[in-house]
Every structure is written in C-alpha cells, then in structure tokens.
C-alpha cells in the first residue's frame, strides 16, 4: 500500500488513535478488576450489603 509523501502523518494518526483506544480499554478493564478486588476484600472481612442491612434495630426504651 503506497501512502504517498505524507505517510508519516497518516501512520501517526492511526498510531495515536490505536494508543488512545487501547488506553481506554485497559483503564476500564483494570478499574473493573480493582473494584471487584475491593468488594471481595470487604466480603472477606465480613462487611457485606446483607450484614449492613441486618444491623440490629435500635429501639429506645420509654423512660
């Protein structure tokens, strides 16, 4: 494929686009893994949404 006298500009544009798209994919994937790890760590320590919901109800005794 002959890209002519301005091949550097064409190739440069496609390299930048590929790098940015790859960066976005890596960022979103790594962020997902980090949040899953954080949730798993909290669960391991017994802190779950269910445990938060099943907190004993505080009823104030009448004086």
């Amino acid at each position, binding site marked *: 494929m002959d890209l002519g006298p301005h091949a550097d500009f064409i190739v440069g*544009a496609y390299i930048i686009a590929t790098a*940015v798209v790859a960066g*976005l*994919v890596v*960022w979103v994937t790594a962020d997902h893994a980090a949040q899953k790890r954080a949730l798993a760590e909290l669960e391991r320590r017994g802190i779950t949404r269910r445990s*938060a919901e099943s907190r004993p109800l505080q009823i104030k005794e009448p004086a």
Partner: protein
Amino acid sequence: MALIDLANPTRFVALVERVLPWLVAATVIAFAFGLWGTYLAPDDYQQGATVKIMFIHVPNAWLSMFVWATMSAAALGTLVWRHPLADVAAKCAAPLGAAFTFLALATGSLWGRPMWGTYWVWDARLTSELVLFIMYLAVIALWRTVDDPTRAGRAAAILTLVGAINLPIIKFSVDWWNTLHQPASVFRMGGPTIDWSMLMPLVVMAIAFTLLFISLHLAAMRNEILRRRVRTLMLTQAERAA
C-alpha cells in the same frame, strides 16, 4: 425487563454483564469491516492518501459532540428527574468524551499539516472544539474535587448544561464564520458530497467508534456502581467502628 427496572443499580449491573460481551463482539466486527473498507478506499483526487485520516478524524469529531449531548441528557436526568443512574452515566461519559475530542484534535492536526500547511489555526471550528476539550477536563476535575457523589453530580450537571451551548457553535461554526476548516460534507442539506466509495467506510467506522463508546460507557458505569458500593460499605464499617 421494564425500562424503569434500569433505575435499580443491581439490575443495571446484571443487564450490563449480559449485554457487554455481545457489544464488544459487535464493536470488533464493525472495526474489522471499517478498517478493511478504509484500506480499500481510493485516494482522493486532491488530497491523495491523506484522506485516510478522515476515517478516524470524522467519527471522533462526531463522537466528541455526541458524548457531550449524552452527558447533557444525563444532566437533565440528574437535575429534573433525579434518576439514580443519571449522574453515574454523566460521570463515566466525561473521560471517554475527552479522549474522543483529543483524538479529533490530534488527528485533525496531523491531517491539517500536509493539507493546510499548518498543524493549528485559531479558526472558529478548531477553537470551539478545543473549548469542548477544556470543558470535558473541567467536568472531570469537578468530579474529582467534590467527595460526595450527589453534590458533585449536581454541580457537574449544571456545568454540562452550560457547556451544551458550545455544541451548535461547533456544528455551525463553518457556516457562520469564514474558517480554514471545510464545511459539512456528510450531514448537510442536499445530501453528502463525498463519493460512495469513501462514504461507506466512513459510516462503518463511525458505527464502530459509536459501538466502542457504548461498550466502554456501560462498562465504566458498572465500575462506578461497584465503586459506590465499596464506598458505602467502607462508610458503614467506619460508622460501626466509631
């Protein structure tokens, strides 16, 4: 699943987990067809092979405005209907929009140098697009400045709606002012002026980049919901410890 069910973050995450693999597959296929079409597209009679930059520049320029329009709709959801996922959608779209706008500016500069003889000129289209990029960075900075997601969401929503004024300025800048940037050649009265052999791969690449945005946006929204879940659990833990 009714549309109202998507207001429930748990159901939304479940839906994303189901839909995302299909969206990713569709994105990869669309890029494969788009890049193949780009490879086969003929050189322009004036620009030569540099016209190939158009196939990444134009979809990113369209997306830069489309993402801000999406954020504006989400901002209305936050301010008017207080939809629980509206500020999540807006927050997650901002970095993606910033990336697409950066790509529109960078590839435009690389296209401009051989065609116009300069990387940059302060004409209305380029300047208004640069303003859009700065607005994206401002929204991202605002989200990072305020700790409480609800307060940050409302402030970012107001900034987003103010910034939406820039969208028609970008679109019509080439008609309202005398610019070095060419006028619209696809979305215009009287139909596209681009030959079918170049228009087809351009449309496919635009579809591919749009699918990429939808995939990344849904994945980032899922991540944000999980992040807020982690934050809530840690606050609960801190309250118990106190």
